């Protein structure tokens, strides 16, 4: 990169920075230099910074992204401390210690069982120490073991058995003595979808003849499912864009009725 190019780029950055500062002050002035006005202007500036990535990567996008990551991490940490550590750990082991913050639970009797999770928590943090990082594995093993056990039972009951149960539907539905056509068609589609989907994932037999037809229907049903999923994803992303535009047009610029 030549010296002239560097100089030109520096001038552009400076002009861009001045334009942003000017726009920020102008926006604040329009909002009457209020605290709310400052928050809305800052929100608009960060929104536009993130949207600027659609053109190409730039310093404003990077700044907004880093700010988001940092604020999120700090937020979760603070929330975790005040909503879990203070009332559910310190408040349980030594209730008088939380009296200045949560007087309501300071008079409750101490429960020393909570020393066990406290020790496990300290063990988990031990991996940050220069020596004895292996100690963290015991706490981690406890977490993995209990989570796996808990999930195994519930997923087996609800996702496997529950879903099998939900798939066992009558193929011909008679209601009040007459054929319920819509429910019958719905149940037939459900049955066909599950059956052909399972055929597609059955690899012990070559997909030929009638079995091959079932497999083909299975892949079509999977494609329709993926298509529906993608359609929903598009809707979700557009919703977020509409949400940001509503913020810019309404809260910031006041253009919407």
């Amino acid at each position, binding site marked *: 990169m030549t010296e002239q190019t560097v100089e030109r780029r520096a001038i552009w950055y400076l002009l861009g920075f001045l334009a942003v500062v000017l726009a920020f002050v102008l926006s604040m002035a329009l909002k009457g230099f209020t605290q709310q006005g400052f928050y809305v202007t800052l929100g608009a500036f960060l929104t536009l910074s993130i949207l600027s990535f659609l053109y190409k990567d730039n310093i404003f996008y990077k700044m907004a992204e880093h700010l988001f990551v940092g604020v999120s991490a700090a937020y979760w940490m603070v929330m975790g401390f005040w909503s879990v550590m203070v009332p559910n750990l310190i408040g349980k082991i030594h209730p008088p210690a939380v009296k200045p913050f949560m007087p309501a639970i300071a008079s409750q009797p101490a429960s020393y069982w909570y020393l066990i999770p406290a020790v496990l928590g300290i063990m988990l943090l031990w991996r940050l120490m220069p020596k004895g990082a292996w100690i963290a594995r015991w706490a981690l093993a406890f977490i993995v073991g209990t989570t796996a056990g808990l999930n195994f039972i519930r997923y087996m009951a609800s996702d496997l058995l529950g879903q099998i149960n939900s798939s066992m539907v009558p193929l011909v539905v008679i209601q009040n003595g007459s054929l319920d056509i819509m429910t019958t068609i719905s149940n037939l589609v459900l049955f066909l979808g599950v059956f052909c989907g399972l055929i597609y994932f059955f690899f012990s037999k070559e997909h030929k003849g009638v079995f091959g037809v079932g497999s083909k229907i299975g892949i079509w049903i999977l494609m329709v499912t993926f298509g529906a999923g993608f359609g929903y994803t598009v809707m979700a992303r*557009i919703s977020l864009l509409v949400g940001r535009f509503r913020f810019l047009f309404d809260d910031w610029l006041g253009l919407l009725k």
Partner: protein
Amino acid sequence: MTNGVNKTFLEKMQAIDRRVIFLFIGLAVALPLLFHVVFTEKITPIVGAIYDRVENLPEGSKVLISFDYSPSTVPEIQPMVDAVLRHCAARKVKIYIMGLWATGQNIADETISRVLKPEFPAYQYGEDYVNLGYKSGNQGLINVILTDLKKMYTTDVHGTAIDSIPMMAPIRNLRNFDLILSFGGGFPGMKEWVLFAGDPGRIPVAGGVTAVSAPQLYPYYPSQLLGLMGGIKGAAEYESEVIRHYSRFENSSHPGIDMMGPQAVAHIVIILFIVVGNVAYFLTRRREAEND
């Protein structure tokens, strides 16, 4: 010569700069918003099931609403929450608010200040609604409160002892609720409520999720999931049903309905781009086959 020009045009259609597409999508969203393009919404059975359940709850029923989302999905989820909260308050049910996400706690506070307090001034904190706040533990938390809620919730979000809150007196565990409504779109969320509360406790679970998450939850409906609002479409349907039955909410904000206009126009633009891209692709392929 003509063939050459056409070929270039077809090639261009297949390689449209992504920024051009972004610009079209931006306009497709901005213009309907500015000109207030809205469509009528008709409720579907899967959303109607939630509306009917709330509508048929007797006065004083206990409804748990879990805020399991963050600001990143507020545009999609918040319209659902606002509409359901208005409906619940109009039915005079007891509202218990909690969150499996740390971010849900502040969003719940903001929602209470914006919807419940100004629109339902008679609703009293501790008597008609309570905010239990956020607790970590994900599905483990649900598993514990299924049998003993006070083991995890010793205070509400303001630090008030649970035992001193009047509406908490009849609550021992999740089985004491008439309905659980979860709003979110990630982990932990509605799936965990179905698996760890609804199924083992035989408690009706419903709610709303982001459109991205909706396809994963449809298989639970109707046997394991009472109803589901999928994305902004679900929110718009619920809002329109609430307005249809409760005319006093006509002047309340209904962002779900407002957002469906830009949504529909943006979808049309996307479909057009897909059609143009595909037509250009097949014409190019045919030309190449003819030239060979």
